[in-house]
């Protein structure tokens, strides 16, 4: 049995929060995506199948909407559906929700068990509440961007800008937090029999995903300067491997690294007894980088990655996003799933379950929906 079996989620969202419904659908909820008659705007976000824009051709839409149903509803029909829902997720600012009769006070008056979750760029209030933001703006304001980019020149100035990761990471973080809050509200509802209103600020979500940066500033008084990812080495085939040497995990890290370097005859000065002392290593860290670079020239990236892992080191080849689909381990876990294309083009592989839940498997019960595909079903269920 699924975790959210029997629960109905109504989704009234733009592209910023579709990932929330995707997660809830995978957990087993009946997620009804309510779309305008001409389709959700995300149906026109590329890339497109065959590079041709069309309602059923957006690969972006396919990915973020698997497992959902689609219904085109009048305001009255929507109101009726909301009366039967357990959760509504929307992306309306406070005034817009009120104008559409979708503010929490109205919804909860007829359905007090309803959990209402609003995902907006800055939250429902505050001086920036009406500002416009897309994912890029949120990555800038949240701090990820200031922390990421290429390293400075030798004179410590930068000739490249701060960089935001491609692919809507701030939106996805906000949508994930929305799912977390909804699940928490559902756990509480089982005891209290009451719904509630959830206000997710994508800006706050983005500002919460920079790991050590904020606390580091508090302790040192200086924001960390941005620089390229640590310990990437170029392998013989020209591909890069992230080759971390996390000494803090224990003395086996250096011991195992040294054995690997010596087996290939590239240890150089690292074989000196001095290097057994972690403080000495700290002061000669560039020699470790040099030795890694020598090791890397002798192996292709995939081989180097697995050599490191077999030695107990957290190494990984730097893949393009689509290359992970061939990872033997993820394939063996059944992570990737085949779902039909909504354009009738047959099955295609999608990213699947985020974990293996043995008692309530995460799975998508259906492919991404065509526009209005389930309108009649949803209305028929109302009259039952």
């Amino acid at each position, binding site marked *: 049995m699924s975790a959210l079996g029997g629960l109905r989620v109504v989704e009234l969202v733009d592209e910023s929060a579709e990932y929330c419904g995707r997660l809830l659908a995978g957990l087993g909820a009946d997620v009804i995506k309510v779309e305008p008659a001409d389709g959700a705007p995300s149906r026109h976000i590329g890339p497109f199948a065959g590079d041709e824009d069309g309602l059923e051709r957006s690969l972006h839409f396919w990915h973020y909407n698997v497992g959902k149903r689609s219904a085109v509803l009048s305001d009255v029909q929507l109101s009726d559906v909301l009366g039967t829902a357990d959760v509504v997720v929307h992306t309306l600012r406070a005034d817009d929700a009120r104008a559409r009769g979708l503010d929490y006070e109205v919804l909860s008056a007829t359905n007090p068990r309803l959990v209402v979750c609003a995902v907006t760029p800055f939250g429902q209030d505050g001086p920036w509440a009406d500002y416009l933001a897309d994912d890029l*703006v949120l990555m800038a304001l949240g701090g990820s961007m200031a922390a990421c980019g290429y390293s400075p020149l030798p004179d410590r100035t930068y000739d490249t800008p701060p960089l935001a*990761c491609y692919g809507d*990471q701030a939106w996805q973080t906000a949508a994930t937090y929305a799912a977390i809050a909804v699940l928490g509200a559902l756990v509480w509802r089982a005891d209290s029999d009451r719904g509630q209103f959830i206000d997710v600020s994508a800006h706050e979500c983005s500002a919460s995903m920079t790991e050590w940066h904020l606390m580091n500033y508090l302790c040192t008084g200086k924001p960390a300067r941005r620089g390229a990812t640590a310990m990437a080495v170029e392998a013989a085939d020209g591909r890069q491997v992230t080759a971390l040497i996390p000494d*803090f995990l224990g003395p086996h890290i250096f011991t195992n690294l040294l054995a690997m370097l010596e087996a290939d005859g590239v240890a150089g000065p690292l074989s000196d007894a001095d290097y057994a002392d972690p403080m000495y290593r700290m002061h000669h860290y560039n020699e470790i980088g040099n030795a890694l670079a020598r090791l890397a020239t002798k192996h292709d990236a995939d081989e180097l990655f697995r050599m490191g892992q077999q030695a107990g080191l957290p190494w990984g080849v730097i*893949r393009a996003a689509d290359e992970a689909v061939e990872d033997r381990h993820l394939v063996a876990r059944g992570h990737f799933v085949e779902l039909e294309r909504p354009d009738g083009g047959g099955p295609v592989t999608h990213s699947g379950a985020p974990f293996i839940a043995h008692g309530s498997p995460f799975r998508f019960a259906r492919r991404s929906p065509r526009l209005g595909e389930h309108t009649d079903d949803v209305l028929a269920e109302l009259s039952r």
Partner: protein
Amino acid sequence: MSSTAPAALSGIRVLDFTRLGFGSQATLILGCLGAEVIRVESSRHPDPIRVMPPYVPRPGETSERFGNATMAAKESAVSMDRGAIFFKYNTGGKKSIAVNARDPRGLDILKQLVAVSDVVTESFALGTMDRWGLTYDVMREQRDDVIYVSMSGYGHEGPDASYITMGPTAQALTGLTHLVGLPGREAAGWSFSYLDHVGGYLGAVAVLSALLHRQQTGDGQYVDVAQLEPATALSGPLLLDKLVNGRSSRRPDFPPGNRRLHPAGAPQGAYRTAGKDQWLVISCTTEPHWRGLSAALGAPAWADDARFATIEARVANADELDKHVEAWTSTKDKYDAMTLLQSHGVPAGAVQDSRDRLEHDPQLRAREHFTSWPHREEGAETLPLEGVPFRMSATPPSTGGAIHRGPPCLGEDTEAVLTSLLGMTSEDVAALQGDGVLA
């Protein structure tokens, strides 16, 4: 925030063996939602983040900066309670007990705690808890409906289950590193462990959904969370582009820096502003954005250039357009420019570093995002912690959790937890502490 408000996870107890970043992030979220999170720790095998520099400076001290060099240097005997920064932001609202699981008496206490816990979480390397004798089957003998969630890099199932990850490893393997960079160059990647956050989010989802499943069925379960798996969904359209269109994202013009391909826009990117290494992001993807930008800049003559007349033309001539925009931004303060552009309906935002977020950002301040919680050694006036980025009207979440506390000292709650939950006496606890069993 009212201390009398109920919490979403009130009454839910989590016996928490997580350590380092990713697992700790998951149980941090559960604590924020009001679960009683009891960290099980050991002074002989401390969580590395308890002792990893830099530390919160004491009066008169300046702290070292974080970096590979300092990470190598944790050998020195540092107090377990010395506010190490990685520990700080991962453990607000959690309790801590000290137990030596390798001593039979310690293991017996842990089994008794499983019996009174709803959830057991851990993030050890594969097989660690099995070697103590604390397998899922043993846990179920203690409590039939226990929810056991393991969080590891590769998960406990699959051919490479013995592999380990840190955030940057997982980011490399799943494409996230490659997605940060300029066209034609090597990846710049992330300077932090984004996937420790993402893994933590999904670890929390695993626990919460298992609780909902238990509410419906009465059954517990085992959930195997692998840090790699949630990451593949973060670039889903790129996977489909490869499989449907044959277009891999490993190509010379990808990733496109700060430009976005879908929808394409211009001007779009980071622009230098006045000051040293200060930047503003502008992202114009519609005609109204463009008209607003032109108005905000006082309708400059270049805005009427035929090369910028349509969105397609602006995207095609984006490099030229960027020069005009940056000539304007480079004389402006980043926040002044942001405010002006926003007042004209243009999506724009300052590139904020940690100092900006803490000391300037009026939105985070108005939303009371940063909160401080008392610490046994540091007292009430502690450094602020990042807050919970969502509000709940009936069950307000809080970084201080249901206990309204900051990060715990090692074993701070040993006596209180074992006397209240297991009926042990303070003398029993003290004796076992003396024997090194509760240490």
